[in-house]
């Protein structure tokens, strides 16, 4: 099949062997690539009960069949491993240019096994693959690492690396690439750190073959037209970036504030996308092959840096009670420099602020930087200390659940399966609550972005307070998202494209005969495989839940006043739609029908 490069790079860090294997094309037909195919390899090769930091865990960087092709947003890759944060499968997605460049080297994925005896980085140039000493890089921030590496491997190589947080095994550490893009979630950076791998550089010289270039050009032209003409992808995201959501979510009264204690932030305008565009934006940036260019480059004082995204602005902003957008930009910068996930890092600080509010963390623990809600210096300083595990930062680096647990108050953690929730209060958005609770990687908005129909009205407007019909919406969104992540495209294309459009691009590039139905079926297969991994790792039905606050404590004020999540009303129907038993376990019939 075209589109793929047909090769895997398997690197054993114990004996430093490098093996180039043929890609299993039968698996590729069933699991597409990226998230799906990477998970299939992982599932077949790694014991689900493995300790995430043991050398028996593996980490896979997987591109999709459309990565590095002329398709819109075709530059993405996934990082697949067992998460040290959630103990579930981790599959973190990132943009930038690294994924496409790996394809240009001639590989669909890289599998790292074992553990290097000292810090190394991996230099990939087409057929030449070297494991090199990284002593001079260890301990460096992400931007310094990239600066030093560029001297070693040349300015044109694309760089993926971890920061100090990954080296120090922070369970919320990210894998960074191309300076400020991140495979952020689930602690994937810490697994790379546990293997003593600081970076992977790629420089390739050939592009993937295309099955029918004339056909691909035609479907890509149609897709680009849809993206350009769509109000979200053609104007909203390019003009304001993701931060435009601040005011929308706040006006709906579902903008979690002070660690979800309330859900309307009276200073939202100060941290809005409109304010960001007016007073801080320097330029827009885009990933490989992206016609949307939602990325931001902002300047505050003498600092100019990538970001911040909506989720980050919310986490450091409303969730910490902070309205100083300049300091949020600085905190985001330090988060990237440390190589931390901005959602988990910022909301772990919010959880620490609540522990301080409750009197469980005291001034004695804080070395002069109080953690009260609204302290706009604290978000910067504690991000640095978290990345370096200094003082209380050592506990923060473990994520909010383990932080809370250390004080006998894990209820302070607004997380699902120990992964911190993002920027939408599910008490006032019922379908999003079900999506959070059932996400295969714990608290996450991009396993099924129900905000699209429940708030934005795309593809149609649903009543956000109602549970009716939501289980089916969640299932379809989860399945389609799994396929988009597996193709190697950005989820934002789905604002303008449907399953049939993805099938058309896949068929033209690869030579398959997919339809919208089989694209969704592949997503269902991927979802069930991830679920099986999680079940075998020890997760149970009881883990498909939300923090007690969101189930029991109503939103106290604002447009969603008095709402709580009605998860129990949706979960049984969701299990049934999935073909799972009442304990949430995929049935034999279901697995057989998907040929798992």
């Amino acid at each position: 099949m075209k589109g793929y490069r047909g090769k895997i790079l398997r690197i054993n860090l114990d004996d430093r062997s490098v093996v180039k294997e043929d890609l299993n094309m039968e698996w590729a037909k069933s699991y597409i690539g990226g998230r799906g195919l990477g998970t299939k390899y992982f599932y077949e090769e790694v014991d689900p009960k493995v300790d995430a930091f043991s050398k028996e865990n593996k980490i896979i960087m997987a591109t999709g069949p459309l990565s590095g092709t002329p398709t819109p947003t075709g530059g993405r890759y996934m990082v697949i491993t067992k998460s040290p944060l959630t103990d579930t499968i981790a599959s973190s997605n990132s943009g930038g240019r690294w994924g496409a460049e790996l394809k240009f080297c001639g590989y669909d994925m890289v599998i790292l096994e074992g553990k290097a005896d000292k810090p190394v980085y991996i230099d990939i140039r087409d057929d030449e693959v070297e494991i090199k000493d990284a002593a001079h890089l260890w301990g460096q921030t992400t931007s310094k690492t990239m600066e030093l590496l560029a001297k070693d491997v040349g300015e044109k190589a694309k760089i993926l690396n971890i920061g100090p947080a990954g080296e120090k095994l922070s369970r919320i550490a990210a894998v960074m690439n191309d300076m400020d893009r991140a495979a952020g979630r689930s602690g994937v950076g810490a697994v790379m750190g546990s293997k003593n791998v600081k970076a992977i550089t790629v420089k390739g010289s050939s592009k993937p073959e295309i099955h029918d270039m004339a056909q691909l050009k035609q479907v890509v032209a149609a897709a680009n037209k849809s993206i350009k003409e769509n109000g979200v992808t053609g104007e909203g995201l390019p003009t304001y970036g993701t931060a435009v959501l601040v005011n929308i979510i706040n006006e709906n009264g579902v903008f979690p504030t002070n660690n979800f204690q309330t859900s309307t932030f009276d200073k939202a305008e100060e941290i809005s996308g409109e304010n960001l565009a007016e007073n801080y934006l320097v330029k827009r940036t885009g990933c490989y092959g992206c016609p949307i260019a939602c990325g931001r480059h902002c300047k505050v004082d003498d600092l100019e840096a990538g970001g911040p995204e909506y989720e980050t602005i919310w986490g450091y902003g409303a969730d910490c009670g902070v309205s100083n957008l300049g300091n949020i930009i600085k905190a985001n910068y330090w988060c990237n420099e440390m190589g931390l996930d901005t959602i988990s890092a910022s909301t772990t600080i919010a959880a620490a602020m609540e522990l301080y509010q409750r009197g469980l963390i005291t001034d004695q623990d804080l070395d002069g930087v109080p953690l009260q809600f609204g302290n706009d210096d604290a978000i910067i300083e504690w991000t640095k200390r978290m990345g370096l595990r200094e003082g209380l930062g050592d506990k923060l680096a473990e994520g909010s659940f383990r932080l809370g647990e250390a004080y006998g108050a894990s209820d302070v953690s607004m997380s699902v399966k120990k992964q911190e929730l993002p920027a939408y209060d599910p008490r006032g958005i019922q379908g999003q609550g079900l999506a959070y609770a059932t996400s295969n990687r714990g608290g996450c908005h991009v396993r099924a972005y129900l905000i699209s129909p429940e708030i934005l009205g795309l593809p149609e407007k649903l009543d956000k307070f109602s549970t009716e019909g939501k289980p089916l919406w969640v299932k379809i969104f989860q399945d389609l998202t799994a396929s988009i992540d597996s193709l190697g495209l950005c989820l934002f294309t789905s604002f303008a494209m449907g399953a049939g459009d993805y099938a058309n691009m896949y068929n033209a590039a690869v030579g398959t005969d997919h339809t919208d139905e089989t694209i969704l079926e592949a997503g269902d297969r991927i979802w069930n495989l991830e679920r099986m991994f999680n079940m075998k790792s020890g997760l149970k039905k009881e883990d498909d839940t939300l923090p007690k606050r969101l189930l029991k404590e109503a939103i106290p004020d604002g447009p969603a006043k008095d709402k709580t999540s009605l998860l129990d009303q949706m979960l049984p129907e969701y299990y049934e739609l999935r073909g799972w038993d009442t304990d949430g376990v995929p049935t034999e019939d279901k697995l057989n029908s998907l040929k798992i």
Partner: protein
Amino acid sequence: MDIQIKLFATLREGRGKIVTKEFPPAATPRQVIETLQISEEDVAILLVNGQDGSLDQELHDQDVLSIFPPVGGG
């Protein structure tokens, strides 16, 4: 009756962030957007007092409208 209109994103251009205007009793959001020269296709999200609203619902004195053009993120 007085209606407060909160505008967002590109709808602010030439109109400002918050506009308060007087309308006849039982006016609708459709009349409001016509007055502000906002086309219907530019109204992607319409909230009345923070709740999902429709263009033809009856407004009341002191109601607050929030109007967004097509935008998204995540």
